[in-house]
Each structure stands twice: as C-alpha cells, then as structure tokens.
C-alpha cells in the first residue's frame, strides 16, 4: 500500500511536470515586447500567406525582404537562399565556401538590392541594430559607408568575419 501511494504521488508529479513544461507560461510573453523597433514585424506586403515568407537559411527566422539587412542568393543548383542578416550570409559563405553563385545585399542608404561582391561593408553595432545583432550593413558607395565607420570590401569582411 505504501509503495502504491508513493508511486501514485511520483507519477502525479511526473505528469504535472510534463504538462507544465509542454505549455510554458511565458510562451506568449514575447508578443508585447515585440511591439517596438523589430525589423521582422513588417512583413513583405506581397507575402499575404505566412508560408510565403522566406526563411533564413542559417537561423530559420522569417526574412523581412523590405528590411535593410536582408540578403539572398542562388546556390549551385539555382535554388534561392535567403538570409535575415548580412552576418548570416557571411557566416553561410564561410561555412560553405563557394556554394553560392550570386549573392545580393541591400544598400543601407538607398534600400536597393546590390551585388554582395561589389558592396562595401561596415560593422558598427552601435549604428546598425540588425536582426541577428551582427551589426553589419552594406553600401553601394564607399563614401556612404565612411559615414558609419571603416569600409571593407567583400573579401576583406569575409576574411575578418568571425562568429566567436
């Protein structure tokens, strides 16, 4: 009888734990906090259905294609790949060297797509609040880039880029 009661008690605790952790109390707590200045809130207007929003190849985050830090490219099989952050694109290129045929980034000043290999990059976390906090922005013109910090070419930023 004693064993049976003990067993029932422990099973109750176990089942309670499963339910408690399967439905975390703070699962909805992020919604009010998301209310300010987060780039991913402004979904692309052309993407009416949630499934249409591209996801970042590196982190799985929904990519805001209207944002200033988005990037996209084509892999060796001409499949489209998307990145929520210029840093994620550089990380992907470092980990999978030579797998992207062409890559595009947004010009921070004009918000236009430009070729990643021809762009200039500035890493300044104090200026750029990017989705993944890499703090890297791309510029078409070197002069525009100089306003925010030391501009680097594509090969320079790729060689100095570190996820450590």
């Amino acid at each position: 009888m004693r064993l049976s009661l003990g067993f029932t008690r422990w099973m109750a605790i176990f089942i309670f734990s499963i339910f408690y952790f399967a439905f975390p109390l703070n699962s909805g707590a992020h919604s009010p906090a998301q209310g300010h200045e987060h780039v991913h809130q402004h979904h692309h207007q052309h993407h009416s259905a949630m499934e249409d929003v591209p996801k970042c190849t590196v982190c799985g985050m929904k990519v805001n294609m209207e944002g200033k830090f988005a990037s996209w490219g084509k892999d060796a099989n001409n499949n489209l790949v998307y990145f929520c952050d210029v840093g994620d694109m550089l990380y992907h290129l470092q980990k999978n060297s030579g797998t992207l045929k062409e890559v595009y980034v947004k010009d921070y000043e004009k918000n236009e797509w430009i070729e990643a290999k021809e762009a200039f990059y500035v890493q300044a976390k104090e200026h750029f609040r990017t989705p993944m906090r890499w703090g890297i922005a791309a510029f078409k013109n070197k002069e525009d880039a100089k306003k925010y910090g030391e501009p680097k070419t594509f090969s320079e930023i790729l060689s100095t880029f570190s996820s450590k």
Partner: protein
Amino acid sequence: MNEENSQRIKKIFPFLFCILGVGIIATPYYIYPVCEYLIYQRMICSYTALAEAILGLLIIGLALGMFFLKTRKALLGISLVLIFLGILVILGPSLVGYCPSPEMPCHKYTVPALRIEGAVLSLLAFFSFFVHFRQRTQHR
C-alpha cells in the same frame, strides 16, 4: 567507502538526476530563455529548446525509475542511458542548431548553460554507474 555511505549516496542519485532534468527543461524556457522567448521570433534555437525539454523529460522519467527499480542491472542500465543522455544534452544544440551570432541570447547564455548541465549529468551518471558496479565486485 563503507556500505552505509554507499547506500546513502545511492539514494541521492535519483534526486540529483531529477533536479538536473528539471534544470535542463527550465534552462531554455525560463533560466536562460532562447531567442523566441525574449524579443525575437521563432527560429532554429526554439527547436533546440524543444529537443532539450524532451531530453529533460526522459531524464526525469529515468530518475523516477531509479526510485522504484532496485535491481542492480536496472540501475546500471539507467546510469548508462543517463550518460548517453548527458552527451546528447551537450551535443543537442550543435545537432539541432542555434543562432551563430555571439550577440544572440541562445548563443551567449542558453547553449553554454545546457552544455554545463549535460556535462554534470554525464559525470554524475558515470559516478552512479561506478558506485553500483563497484558494490557488486566488493560483494564477490
């Protein structure tokens, strides 16, 4: 280690494993929440949190099993499985994935905390295995 001490240590193991299991579940949701539970949206680290929670539940289940199963073989088996689960807890974030940016909360806090918990679990489970294994050889 005399018999009385050994018995006392054996009784402590299930409690420690339970605490670690709860810790492994709570870490990515409450203690050091992954990005989704802060100001970010759902991404790959959310799935790591889920995987670690499942591992945590398994650890708690096995720890509860240690309370009721008293045969040496069962206790040795559970200890071995817990060593394996500890290694899985360490490798989980790398296997499932997490944010590469060092500024992200999952990269900065959650993953190191989980790896420490996994290492502690594996070491404790190894010690548990050793204690249960050693007892039999002493009786011989």
